[in-house]
């Protein structure tokens, strides 16, 4: 059993029953001709309504597997996954908006119609979908790029458009799978602040998966550190900073640095 080291105080920890995302005893195996891989073994994790839960872990610890389970894109071999009260796969699919690591924008659609795709597949007419997506572009400072094709946009811009598409899906839970991993470090830093502000403006329950400890702490209300495969929660850390945070002030704070040290130590410790 994993030792659940609670770093900060546990008084405001949400009880299980109000959790919007709850995984308990989740095990997931993959079989291949070379044998069986245990991706997750008895994982317990929960995110409360409106909470940003960061999940950080080494490469190949089953982070993406975890998101796909929550999203209803796959089923656990043991244990249960519940999202907004739904444990059935269809229910989880309907409650989650999943943002993959790559933007996956359709090259023949403009930024605006790419985002509006989320509404179109739900049966909205293209013109109505565009009309509903447009205000979001204005609000998030992307109005000038609404008509541009993805090939004309930088990596950071494409990622913003992909995020708006995720928001427009209109689901209570956002699942972000290493959303900035493909970006250079300067762009990534700018995107983290942008996302923090976007989430302050459009509050959702978020599960953010990343291998970047600082990103996990900067964006999350809580950070769960996973062990290498098979993934288990090594430690959960509360991040007691008001959101949205400003990057410069936050990362230079002594308390933030201490948390970062703690998370890194947990990552290293779990590797042995």
């Amino acid at each position, binding site marked *: 059993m994993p030792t659940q080291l609670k770093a900060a105080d546990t008084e405001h920890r949400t009880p299980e029953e109000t959790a919007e995302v709850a995984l308990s005893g989740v095990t997931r195996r993959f079989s291949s001709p070379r044998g069986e891989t245990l991706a997750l073994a008895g994982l317990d994790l929960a995110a409360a309504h409106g909470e940003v839960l960061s999940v950080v872990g080494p490469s190949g610890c089953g982070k993406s597997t975890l998101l796909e389970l929550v999203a209803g*894109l796959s089923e656990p071999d043991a244990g249960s996954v519940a999202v907004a009260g739904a444990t059935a796969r269809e229910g989880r699919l309907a409650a989650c908006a999943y943002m993959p690591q790559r933007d996956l924008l359709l090259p*023949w659609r403009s930024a605006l119609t790419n985002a509006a795709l989320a509404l179109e597949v739900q049966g909205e007419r293209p013109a109505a979908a565009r009309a509903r997506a447009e205000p979001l572009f204005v609000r998030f400072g992307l109005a*000038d790029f609404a*008509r*541009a094709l993805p090939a*004309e946009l*930088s990596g950071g811009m494409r990622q913003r458009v992909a995020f708006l*598409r995720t928001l427009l899906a209109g689901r209570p839970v956002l699942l972000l799978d290493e959303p900035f991993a493909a970006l250079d470090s300067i762009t990534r830093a700018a995107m983290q602040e942008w996302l923090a502000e976007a989430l302050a403006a459009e509050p959702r329950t978020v599960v953010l998966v990343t291998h970047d400890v600082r990103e996990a702490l900067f964006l999350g209300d809580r950070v769960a550190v996973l062990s290498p495969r098979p993934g288990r929660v090594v430690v959960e850390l509360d991040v007691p900073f008001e959101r949205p945070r400003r990057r410069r002030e936050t990362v230079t704070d002594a308390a933030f640095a201490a948390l970062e040290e703690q998370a890194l130590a947990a990552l290293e410790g779990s590797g042995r």
Partner: protein
Amino acid sequence: MTATSPPSDGRATRGEPRGTAAESTPEAAARPHRPAARAGALRRAGPPVLLVAAGLVAWQGVASLPAVDDLTLASPLETRAALGRDLPLLADAALVTLLEVVLGLALAVAFGAVTAIAMHLVHPLRQAAYPVLVASQAIPVVVLAPLFVLAFDYGLAPKLAIVALICFFPVTVNLLDGLGSVEPELRKLMRSLGASRLSTLRRVELPASLPSLFSGLRVAATVSVIGAVFGEWAGADAGLGRLVLLANNQLQTPRVYAGVVLLTLMAVALFVLVGLAERIAVPWRRAGRSEA
């Protein structure tokens, strides 16, 4: 609340506003200049034109050798003369053949699209039909052509059947590959967004398969003319293929060459037309390339 600060990536793209105000739209900045594109087209046309010119000169040289029989090889000048002299005859025949080719291609695209989409959507059908599809390409059409004429009579039908049969394979296989080329991640995303199977087909897989479809169409366009000629050789009362066959029997070699030149031009013109259609239907491909 105005949610966020204006975007400021470290990396600047064309047209991305640096600082406060956006002066130009990204579209205006990103489109390539037209005159430059035209100069590029001219430069690309240069080498093939030179090669053809060199070929013509060599052809004329060989045909002018005293050892070369005029009945075996008509020179470019003789061919040109035949083209001018027999133009009404050739033009009438060319129209007949062109109709066979275009209708046959249309049939191939219609049947090919239905087949490819059905095979894409129904996995067992794909497994069952793929070997049959490959076999359809291995059929020696030359042998089939007379049978088609027996079955469908001398008119347009057997030619259409042959052209369609020849073009069916490249169209279907390329479209099927294109439909299957969509990355699994994208399918997952569509499922998560709540898209139905048909919605994914319509909004993602079909547009994504267009470049592949056009590759198939380019191959089909060039072989379609060959198909029409086979069809006419098996039995016809009009068309360029029939004209060439007759002229050959009558030892009118320059007319044979003139017919062959027209058939070649037809295939090349179709190929170019498919390319133009692709540029209109798949504009994002060029956008992607100019970025790279």
